């Protein structure tokens, strides 16, 4: 029977099915961070069991770490205790930990792919909704809650109902100045913040194929922002080339064998999806969000929808959102002043993102009204940015590179956007208070963020390329 890419991977990992219930799904790789794991470790200890497959488990602190002076002890007492708890739990259970001063530390969804831990055909989970990032490699990867983290620690399995399947095709070629981030913001603006709920989404089509691995990761990363359980893209030569030679990738003959297997991970021609959507790449332009969920996005050159464009049931939420943002229905987006620019996160904190920003700001200067936080996704990205001269370019333009972590994406550490201030962010969520109480977030691509950083206001980057 013809199968989708998702079915091939899911079905190969089903240990058993509960009658009228969820599947027992075997997990190949369990990624762990400091915020959603302490209660799970405490849980297995209370049950008197240890981590079942520590060799399939990798941990790193990322959500709750400072992005300056990481060589010093963490100042915030609760944060320090949480990070130390992760260290203790990993030592006790024999789990590999890339701690704060380890050269492999970083945002969990940046380090997995970068170290070659993420591979096609795998099932990957983490107590973090952006685990969908790893789907870019043709893996079934999804976020789980802490009770489920406990399940995986205890048994290497989760109980999961099988999601429905959706395919989103982006056909044709992207226009110049349109990036992966614009593609996914465009898709979410069409599908809405809840339109993917209950589905696992395969992204396909020429425009998706033409993306680099890092671009594909950006797309899959945000599949949760339309409510989808996860997103994935069939692996191809771009994928294999990216994995080759990485720390934990198969080597030599083993790599060749692995590629043979990986080439079987694609959707069969006659396979059926529960839902299929088509978009034209030519319709996509640089995007920005104006509201308080990622579905509230528009072309940068467009206006915020007017009240008559909003249906009655959504008016209350829309008006609440506009009130929070300090915007009015029908406002033009371009030209609005901005206070902060944040480049980083598991969505856009990778080396290509920093390269793109550096290439844009080279020979230009940061606008005086902008406070910019540029945060590498990992220690390896940070190192590479130094080696490639990116840091020098950034500094000459008035920017500084901070140290790796989730940072202002969720503002668990000190990197908080002040109340009422506008931040153009390359991260993934523009929820109320996401970047700090009262902070106003506008999501955009690294290219747009760079253009905003040098002009001090919302601008379509193509106008100043």
């Amino acid at each position, binding site marked *: 029977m013809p199968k989708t890419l998702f079915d091939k991977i899911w079905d*190969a990992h089903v*240990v*058993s099915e509960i*009658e*009228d*219930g*969820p599947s*027992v799904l*075997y997990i190949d790789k369990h990624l762990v961070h400091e*915020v*959603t794991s302490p*209660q799970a470790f405490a849980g297995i200890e*209370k*049950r008197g069991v240890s981590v*079942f497959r520590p060799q399939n488990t990798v941990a790193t602190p990322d*959500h*709750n770490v400072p992005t300056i002076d990481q060589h010093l002890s963490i100042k915030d007492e*609760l944060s320090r*205790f*949480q990070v130390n*708890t992760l260290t203790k739990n990993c030592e006790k259970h024999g789990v590999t930990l890339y701690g704060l001063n380890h050269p492999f530390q970083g945002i969990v969804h940046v380090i997995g792919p970068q170290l070659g831990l993420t591979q096609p055909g795998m099932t990957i989970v983490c*107590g*973090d*909704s952006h685990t969908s990032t790893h789907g870019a490699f043709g893996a079934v990867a999804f*976020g*789980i*809650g*802490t*009770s489920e983290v*406990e*399940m995986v620690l*205890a*048994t*290497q*399995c989760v*109980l999961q*109902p099988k999601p429905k399947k959706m395919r989103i095709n982006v056909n044709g070629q992207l226009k110049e100045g349109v990036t992966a981030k614009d593609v996914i913001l465009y898709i979410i603006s069409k599908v809405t*913040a*809840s339109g993917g*709920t*209950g589905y696992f989404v395969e992204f396909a089509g020429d425009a998706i194929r033409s993306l680099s691995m890092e671009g594909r990761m950006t797309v899959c990363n945000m599949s*949760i*922002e339309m*409510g989808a*359980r996860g997103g994935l893209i069939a692996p191809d030569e771009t994928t294999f080339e990216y994995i080759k030679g990485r720390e934990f990738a198969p080597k030599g003959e083993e790599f060749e064998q692995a590629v043979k297997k990986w080439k079987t991970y694609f959707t069969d021609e006659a396979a059926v999806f529960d839902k299929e959507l088509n978009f034209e790449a030519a319709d996509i332009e640089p995007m920005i969000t104006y509201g308080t969920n990622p579905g509230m996005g528009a072309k940068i050159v467009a206006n915020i929808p007017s009240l008559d464009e909003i249906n009655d*049931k*959504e008016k*209350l*939420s829309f008006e*609440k959102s506009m009130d929070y943002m300090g915007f009015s229905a029908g406002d033009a987006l371009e030209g609005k002043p901005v206070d902060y620019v944040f480049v980083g996160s598991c969505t856009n904190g990778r080396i290509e993102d920093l390269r793109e920003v550096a290439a844009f700001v080279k020979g230009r200067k940061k606008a005086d009204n902008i406070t910019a936080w540029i945060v590498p996704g990992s220690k390896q990205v940070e190192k590479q940015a130094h080696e490639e001269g990116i840091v020098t370019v950034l500094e000459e333009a008035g920017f500084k590179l901070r140290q790796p972590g989730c940072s202002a994406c*969720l*503002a*668990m550490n000190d990197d908080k956007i002040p109340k009422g201030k506008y931040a153009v962010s390359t991260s993934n*969520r523009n*929820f*109320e*208070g*996401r970047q700090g*109480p*009262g902070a106003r977030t506008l999501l955009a691509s690294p290219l747009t963020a760079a253009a905003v950083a040098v002009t001090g206001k919302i601008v379509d980057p193509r106008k100043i390329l």
Partner: protein
Amino acid sequence: MAVEKFNTIISSAVPLPIENVDTDQIIPARFLKATTREGFGDNLFRDWRYQNNGEPNEDFVLNNPDYSGKILIAGKNFGSGSSREHAAWAIHDYGFKVVVSSFFADIFRNNALNNGVLPVVVSEDFLAKLFSAIEQDANAEFKVDLEAQRFEIVATGEQVSFDINPYKKQCLVNGYDDIDYLLSIKDDIERFEKERV
């Protein structure tokens, strides 16, 4: 480890007619530094519930003495965004046993079920009816019968049925725990590992 058993609940409800309530609103990230499951109820809906100076925001429904109960009734797409189970812990810790909406985000629904909080999905029309029932009478009572999978407006007797996965229903009714189940089939898991290579 057994969890609390879920019985039939008759209670008034707290209305939150806002769509897309994400888990950052339910419990903001800066309150996720705890390493235990307790105490999150104090910060449930923190930034809506309190002003910057820490004083309660009188306009927010949890601070309105007219409304109380074990049932939270919320707008479409409740629990979207972050996978933080702390959101379910906060709702449970505050005292809610049931959340009613026309639509739940997937991860939140799983997290709620794993913590003895029942997510009840009703149609958008019925949801509107619930909000207007509470608007007319803040003390309006609702009956949630998990065994029969019925949700009832007590005053009028109007009922709707709701869906729940039969396995999850058994877990809630009996206080079963998924992890106990998985531990009980460890032999199957080890066999699977050997056979797949």
